[in-house]
């Protein structure tokens, strides 16, 4: 699946033949994608190239080959790159903070860097995103006093400043507790303006819950692009439930009901065929690509 594209209703971001190497390591290899308005989940194991792809989409780094276009703008051109950034919200995977800033002061500072220069509008924006991530009561707290989860929400809040058209979130749910994850899903689902949202995650259930589109990136290449149900369908007829472990399965694990779930081509003895999940589909793809 070298050249996979989402056939979309509104393609806004297009990636053509994108490649990026770090020394001998090929992080991205001829990636083609078009992204539409709405949420696209990016799944892949560690080292698959997700963060590299997102940082290129965020105009933070440049590809060795290939091109990106967002809103018809080419980030290789300085002026157009700035214009893309004016429409961008980005949460890097590893984000430090100015820990001596207060939460509100930090967001205000980021808002200025996002060229929201009107003070009143900036204050409104800060209040809006703080409420969106549930940190309104911590506005005056120093960032160093926040828990890891709160800092992650603050990172999401800064990405939402200015109601970006292109929202790139690299593992936004890392560090969030279950309730916060649910609130995050609610937040993303209700974003005004239906922005192009790309989020990378290891949480397949997050993808299944909120992403109409999903891309699986393995070893720097796009191995799947489609809906979550289509991804789940790739494991159709190959997900089983049984009372015993079967060594022929690609993957086996005991579930909460004390039964073994198997992903593989051969049904174990006495096994019962079950409906595949997004996770099953992802695991099948990963296995097929030699990722496991």
């Amino acid at each position, binding site marked *: 699946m070298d050249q996979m594209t989402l056939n979309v209703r509104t393609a806004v971001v297009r990636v053509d033949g994108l490649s990026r190497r770090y020394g001998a390591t090929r992080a991205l290899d001829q990636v083609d994608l078009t992204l539409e308005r709405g949420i696209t989940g990016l799944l892949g194991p560690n080292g698959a190239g997700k963060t590299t792809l997102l940082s290129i989409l965020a105009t933070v780094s440049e590809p060795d080959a290939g091109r990106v276009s967002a809103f018809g703008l080419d980030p290789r051109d300085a002026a157009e790159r700035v214009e893309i950034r004016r429409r961008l919200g980005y949460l890097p995977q590893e984000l*430090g903070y100015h820990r001596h800033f207060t939460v509100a002061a930090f967001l*205000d500072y*980021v808002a200025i860097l996002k060229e929201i220069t009107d003070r009143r509008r900036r204050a409104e924006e800060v209040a809006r995103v703080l409420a969106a991530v549930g940190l309104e009561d911590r506005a005056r707290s120093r960032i160093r006093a926040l828990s890891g989860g709160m800092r992650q929400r603050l990172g999401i809040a800064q990405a939402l400043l200015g109601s970006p058209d292109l929202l790139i979130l690299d593992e936004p749910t890392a560090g969030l507790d279950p309730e916060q994850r649910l609130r995050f899903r609610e937040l993303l689902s209700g974003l005004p303006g239906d922005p192009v949202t790309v989020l990378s995650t290891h949480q397949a259930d997050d993808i299944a819950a909120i992403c109409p589109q999903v891309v699986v990136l393995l070893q720097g290449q796009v191995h799947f692009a489609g809906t979550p149900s289509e991804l789940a369908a790739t494991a159709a007829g190959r997900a089983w439930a049984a009372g015993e472990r079967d060594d022929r399965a690609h993957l086996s694990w005991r579930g909460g009901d004390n039964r073994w779930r198997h992903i593989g081509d051969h049904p174990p003895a006495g096994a019962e065929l079950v409906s595949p999940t997004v996770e099953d589909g992802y695991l099948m793809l990963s296995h097929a690509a030699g990722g496991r």
Partner: protein
Amino acid sequence: MTATGGGPALPAAGTAALADGHAPASLIARSRDVRLRTVLGLARVEAPLLARSLLALAGLIAGGAVVWVLIATMQPLWWSAGWRIGAGQLILGMTVLAAAQLAAGRARRDSMTDLYASFPATAGTRTLGYLVGLAGAVPASLVLLGAGAVVVQARGAIGSPSVTVLAAGVVLVIAAGAVGIAIGTRFAHPLAGVIGALLMFLPEATSHLSSGAGLWLVPWDILQNQLGNLPGPLAGYPPAGGHLLELAGVALLAGVVALAMTVRGAWARGGLAVAGVVAVPVIAFAAVAQLSPVPTTELNHLVTEIADPASVQHCTTANDVRYCLYPGFGRDLLSLEAPVDGVLARVPARPGQALTVGQIVAPQDITNEYLFYGHSQQQVTRWNAQIMREPASVPSASAFYLSVGRWPAGGGRLADAHFNVALTAAEWAVRLLSPDTLPTEQPCVPVDQAREPIAIWLAILATHPPASGLQNDGGMTAVEVHNTLVPTWTNAGGPVGQINGSAPQLTDAGYLLAKAMTSLPEQKVSQVLRGTWATWLNEHTTDARLAAALGIRMPSVPKPSLAGPGPGQPGLKTVGQPGPQSPVCTS
């Protein structure tokens, strides 16, 4: 949704012109106005952060302390005080440099470079914001300047402040901040700012190694000693305008360097190159201006003021005493009159020759290396010869002189200075000022002469100095007179006021007897003195006779001890070391 072969997606309403791959001009039109507002917005955040930073606050306090120490020890002469206030700005500048470096390196230090790189505000815009945000250091600089000015004024300032010198101090702080930003854009580690601040101070710490006018090229020369000894401002010395220009050039160049490291656009880089090309010659021109010699006409005028003060000084006669002061120093008159009048009021009869109290510039306070830099050796020799003819170089029994800039503005040092003036006036009254002894020679010693304790007693009653200023050193110092060690006395307050004249070296015996005299009613002592005043002035009238006339016992004088450092004054020595013989005072 199906996977396809990577064909182009269709543009749709509400989405920019995606299909042709080009953005409409309206999208990419980058508003300068937006960028300017972003810079100002950043500056509005950075400026208060800088103003409230602990580093800037520490710099303000430390700079204030430096200014206080430098001003408190000097006569408040504006032509010197302005530079001393600037020394505080140097300290503030060092901390502002460190704070600015921290701000400029903040994103990298806090692992936020990726996020910052995704913002429309470019690194160049941010750097410009930091640079404009240096305005946050200006209030601290102005507070330092204002507080220093208030202190100088409150202590009775002489002269008027130089706006150029004071402004140069503020520009120094801004230039230091710009250097800090230039460092921070390249080196994010806090240590880089600390090293930068120390390097900023290094030229000052080694300025004593520089020769000639090179002194003025360092960020700020703290001590400026010589200035405080001049009788007025000297045009072109120090070269304040050149230094202001140098600092402004450094600020510009540092800003250019900071921006050059962050700006990407060809036009912007071209503009920076032009700014850099402007800054370097400005600095060079300023350096040349500072290295230029002080104009000959100015130095001629100064040397005349020093060698022949009468040509410029204003003289006033009060209570038959003549006071001659340089223009602007008139407010010192009352401070001088009080102790002199206090003595004269108790003296039964004055010497025939009236007393003159004047001001001089002591030749030893003039440092050729800096003042006469760039002039021919012949000219310098001529000037030096003139300077050596200043009035205090001639022995006089009826005059003494105060060095310019040494008169304290207040506090305990002023009390000491008052006592010293009173003591010298009393020495004149009892004819102890020698017409035969050059001030540079060994002073005479009034060994066992009654007029010595009388002079000390007169000075004590005229000024009532604190007891701490009148202690004797218990025989630690002595002079040799006729091969006999005589314990000497110098008031513990020291030579405050820097009085130049042919004054004698006083003895412990005289001091102790004077102290005993103060235990008697003043009226009783005055009565004894008034009756036979001429007798008491005779050099052969002994301490014992005075004690007997007053009905008090002669105090015992401590024997010279065998340890202790010598005070380093002519004729004085540490006991036990060989020294020259001192003459006995004669009438």
